[in-house]
């Protein structure tokens, strides 16, 4: 697993953090009720991202180096042209910090990946709507190697109800 760094922000200077927030503000500016990434990317959020992804620290630092100048647009242009992997790391730090912020998640209506209870006993809507019957009505789709043609099965069920009344199926194992 990735190496854990005690405080990843300790190796970033004030100038680099200022440049980072300038880029963040350009990539994700405040619009309507949505805050800018610069507003959201607190030290705590950056620590969170760089703790999860310590491998991003070096390319992030490279993306913030002074020789790329003070103009954010040209910094992004040069990185995109000459160092796309470095630009990707910069974008991922900003996006990662922004979209793991609880307030941002609430604003975009994203609760995270939820654990939902499956309701396997419910009759699926696609059966209710007859969508499966429409597939079955067209008959077999597979190609029979013995003929080279689409398979023909005389007594193939044409509805889902027929499928389940056609024969008693053996069931081994499972539930």
């Amino acid at each position, binding site marked *: 697993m990735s190496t854990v760094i005690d405080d990843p922000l300790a190796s970033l200077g004030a100038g680099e953090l200022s440049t980072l927030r300038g880029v963040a503000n350009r990539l994700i500016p405040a619009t*309507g009720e949505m805050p800018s990434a610069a507003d959201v990317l607190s030290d705590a959020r950056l620590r969170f991202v760089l703790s999860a992804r310590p491998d991003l620290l070096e390319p992030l630092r490279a993306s913030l180096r002074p020789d790329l100048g003070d103009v954010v647009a040209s910094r992004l242009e040069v990185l995109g042209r000459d160092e796309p992997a470095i630009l990707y790391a910069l*974008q991922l730090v900003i996006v990662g910090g922004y979209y*793991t912020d609880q307030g941002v998640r609430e604003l*975009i209506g994203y609760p995270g*990946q939820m654990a939902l209870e499956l309701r396997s006993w419910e009759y699926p809507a696609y059966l209710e709507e007859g969508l499966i019957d429409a597939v*079955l009505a067209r008959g077999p*789709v597979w190609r029979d190697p013995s003929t080279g043609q*689409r398979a023909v099965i005389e007594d193939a069920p044409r509805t889902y109800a027929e*499928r389940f009344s056609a024969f008693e199926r053996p069931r081994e194992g499972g539930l």
Partner: protein
Amino acid sequence: MAQEPADVLIIGAGASGGVVGKRLSEAGFSVVCLEQGDWLDRADYPGNKLDWELKARKDWATSPNIRGLAQDYPIVEEDTPVSPLMYNAVGGSTIIFAGAWPRALPSDFRVRSLDGVADDWPIDYFELLPYFYRTDRDFGVSGLPGDPAYPPDTEDAPMPPLPIGSAGMKVARGMTKLGWHWWPEFNSINSVAYDGRRPCVQRSTCQSGCNEGAKASTDLTHWPKAIARGAQLVTGARVRRIETDAKGLATGATWIDRDGAEHFQPARVVVLAANAIGTPRLLLLSASPAHPDGLANSSGLVGKRLMMHPFANVAGLFEEPLMSWQGQFGDLIESLEFYETDEKRGFVRGARWGLAPTGGPINTALPSRAGEQIWGADHHAHVRTHLGHGANWGLFAEDLPDDANHITLSSAVTDADGIPAPEVHYTMADNARRMLDFHIERATESMEAAGAYKIDVDRLMRYSGWHLLGTARMGDDPKTSVLDRWNRAHDVPNLYVVDGSCFVTSSGVNPTSTIVSIALRAADHMVETRSEQQVPA
């Protein structure tokens, strides 16, 4: 004192290794398995944590070159547009596979006879059918019986189908309008509690390990049962080469532990289950004066005919919220409408479509599949309209075998133990390109019929080499195949290969169900013929 040889040494504790390990240990064989990875604790999987989307792109990436973990080996991939993907741990790539569980179709085994290309298999669908049923039960498969894309079954999936979600319903309605085949996907993911494992919670993080243990992986479904029957599973064990005696029989394997110490594990029979990159790598590494081109390679086909299923993605965007960041990943639904050959299309064979969830907000902003990055004032509108509003058709094209697509050993790159890395040389064939172009057009029509107002296409995804196949094919003629119909090396009568290397052609479907069914068939044969098995003195 000399170490007692194992009846069977298995190299690799993934899908096929798990199946063979369980079957043989239950039959009373003494089994040792060497696995370069470790046991994982699913409490550590990132899917139920805030940093999931960040870690999914590094420590939990599907590419070993991106992960770069200690148990991984590098793959030289400058000469391929598709990166091979895998995972090294107990459970192997089942830890991170999606869990989609389609079977190869009857025509897949008769490609030469039906379409005049590639080769027929020495076995067929109906011979494998009992093994499909058994592996469905052992892995735990959820699905709706009666799919008319397959011959009628006499045994249903052991669990009812997983839900197809709002995205699946939307696309299914579109497919119905077009009169095209679709079906709820079969997945090796529990829809109800099964075999001591919990049901799926639809978190959609299957490719970062399943926190619930609902998705089948052999660290849960097979190895505990094998170990209970006496199998010994050694982790952190990287095999350097398979050794042979003067008679040409395999005698065991030399391996390296985590501290760099070298060991030898003697065995009466050796089973390779290291995937279609790792297996030919080991066979080539096992070259000796007696077999200078690699072990079991008198045909010259070890490492050749690599197939990886060129993969395209067609993403539809819908006005309605579909909450499509949830759902099994795994597939929601599939289509085999255009799977079989129609020569009017300008290519032979076909592709399977699988509809998948679309990821969270980081993936929306920085899409790993089809899509675009939008920055500046329009970024928020982009995320609002895309997050949870999409549906992805993944298109798996059948990849026909070609000797030019092959694995060699690198002269420049090694793994952490100094063992040469595999080099992949692969070009996408014209037939596959025409096939994907056709299927992209049809899948686009499907999304339009479903009501998508915007459609993005990724015409060939680089990080899509999930399905590694064909590098030690089976066949009846030792001159044109590496393995016989029972997965035994023609050249080495006590050496078996049970992973996807044995595939003669690739089919156009996710291969795990077929791989493990072939592996179980091979294990059954080993049990049935144990008294006739040649072993070293």
